[in-house]
């Protein structure tokens, strides 16, 4: 803005993006102050999807929280499941069987691929590339088929249990999984090829919504957003859980921490996840898929049907819930958007005393107002917001 005397006096325009707006996935409201097309100030409001996960958890048994977890980050529900189960296992001090760990790794990585496909697809769509979005979603659907075969549902999986997982891999799973991955990644590559080198897309993404390493670390950002700034921090490497220490994979990092880097990091991460799934499928050992601990795990069904001990055990676990030892614990996983943690407090009863979620995108959302948005144009809100990958269920809990 020049300050000549002839400038017309203007007022900035305020527009309300959301909570109901095509680009605001997960209902977020942004009050945007515009000077022309340039953003002067934004005020982001979250909480429109608040369904009280944390409070609701306090009124049900430990095991009944599991289906609620599915609804946190609903594009990668399996990771939520495992994160919650892992926190509980930490508190119960149980070690899950090897096979269960592998199944968790396979399921979690498929989920992560789905997550990145959704996020990147949506980013593409929001800058107008509808076809790449649908290719990504189509690829994701192919993976959901696999998830459905494994868990019985596509999204509301309810798959993890304290001490393991609910089901073993179905027969012939490895082959079908690889086949689905092949098909999915063919589409994924098409979507990639449609956008990544296209100048229109690069112009929209490059140098837009930049954050520096220092800012990211200062704000507690994790996941692809942090890695896009060049910090190679991935919980699967930094503090390996399950069997990630046996997997070979690379951590993709970006340089600029801009939207384009986030796009690239997610693309690459999905491919790395594929590597992990393939390795895990090759290495998975036979064995039980759940611990046998009558304190926490429902007894096998035939014991329930035929012995009073099993039946009593079953009844007590259902009526009162598994008595998780008193104490507090923080369980963490590398979720689709970053560090997904559950901070759990137990008073020794069958219900959580407190179950708090450290949701990665909530942390990332706080960057929008001070750093990411001001100075950009209104059209940039969309890809920037898309690259933060805010998932309402997880952010608002």
């Amino acid at each position, binding site marked *: 803005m020049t300050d000549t005397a002839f400038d017309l006096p203007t007022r900035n325009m305020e527009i309300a993006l959301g909570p109901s707006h095509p680009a605001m996935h997960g209902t977020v409201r942004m009050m945007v102050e515009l000077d022309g097309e340039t953003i002067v100030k934004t005020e982001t409001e979250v909480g429109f999807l608040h369904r009280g996960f944390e409070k609701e958890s306090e009124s049900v048994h430990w095991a009944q929280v599991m289906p609620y977890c599915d609804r946190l980050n609903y594009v990668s529900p399996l990771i939520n499941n495992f994160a919650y189960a892992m926190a509980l296992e930490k508190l119960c001090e149980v070690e899950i069987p090897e096979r269960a760990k592998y199944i968790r790794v396979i399921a979690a990585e498929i989920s992560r691929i789905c997550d990145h496909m959704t996020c990147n697809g949506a980013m593409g769509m929001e800058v107008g590339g509808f076809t790449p979005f649908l290719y990504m979603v189509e690829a994701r659907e192919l993976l959901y088929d696999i998830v459905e075969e494994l868990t019985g549902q596509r999204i509301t999986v309810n798959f993890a249990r304290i001490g393991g997982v609910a089901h073993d891999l179905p027969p012939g799973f490895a082959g079908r999984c690889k086949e689905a991955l092949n098909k999915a990644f063919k589409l994924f590559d098409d979507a990639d090829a449609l956008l990544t080198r296209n100048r229109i897309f690069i112009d929209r993404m490059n140098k837009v919504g930049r954050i520096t390493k220092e800012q990211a670390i200062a704000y507690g950002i994790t996941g692809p957003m942090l890695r896009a700034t060049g910090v190679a921090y991935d919980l699967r490497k930094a503090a390996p859980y399950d069997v990630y220490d046996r997997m070979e994979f690379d951590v993709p990092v970006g340089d600029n921490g801009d939207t384009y880097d986030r796009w690239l990091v997610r693309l690459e991460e999905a491919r790395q996840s594929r590597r992990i799934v393939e390795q895990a499928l090759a290495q998975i050992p036979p064995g039980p898929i759940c611990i046998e601990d009558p304190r926490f795990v429902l007894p096998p069904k*035939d014991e329930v049907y035929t012995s009073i001990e099993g039946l009593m055990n079953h009844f007590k676990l259902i009526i009162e819930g598994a008595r998780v030892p008193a104490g507090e614990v923080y369980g963490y996983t590398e979720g689709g958007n970053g560090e997904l943690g559950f901070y759990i407090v137990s008073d020794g009863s069958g219900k959580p005393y407190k179950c708090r979620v450290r949701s990665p995108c909530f942390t990332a959302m706080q960057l929008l107002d001070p750093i990411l948005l001001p100075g950009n144009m209104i059209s940039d809100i969309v890809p920037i917001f898309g690259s933060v990958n805010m998932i309402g269920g997880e952010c608002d809990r």
Partner: protein
Amino acid sequence: MGVVRVRDRVEYSLYERSFVPEILRGLAITLGHFFSNAFGNKETRNLQTVRYPEEQRVYPARYRGQHRLLQREDGSSRCVACYMCSTACPAYCIHIVAAESPDNRIEKYPAAFEIDLLRCIYCGLCVEACPEDAIRMDTGVHTPPFFTRDDAVVGRIDLLSLMGRAGTAPAYGAQNYREGKPRGA
């Protein structure tokens, strides 16, 4: 620890800057999809759409579909109204009224057993909670649409009349869902 720098794979050269070649390539990709879908044969077609009521997806064996109540040999319900399912239900969607059975080996049966399918979240915890193998979700059908809220409340008779899919082993029932340990070992 392997680290990949993603920027290294991207150049912003004259080639990208000139718009047109990448656009032509993009067109080639989308046209490829278009032609293989529009004029291709069965193998090359890759249409994901299911023409729903006419075509239906076959759900995998584990699919948690609509619930059903199992029957005893004599056709009565296996359910004994123990309330385990309604207790395990995180959505509070199962409503049971118990009654005294004239048969003193059974003692108890559900005078009413209703599932509000609008509240149900299909998590399968009721099936896991059932100590009588009386409720399963192996019908292989998804919830039908409803016109009124009352329609969504499915009663005992309807639940008993549903059949499981052939070929799907009982989800939890006869087989040990934690594989391995034979009974009494």
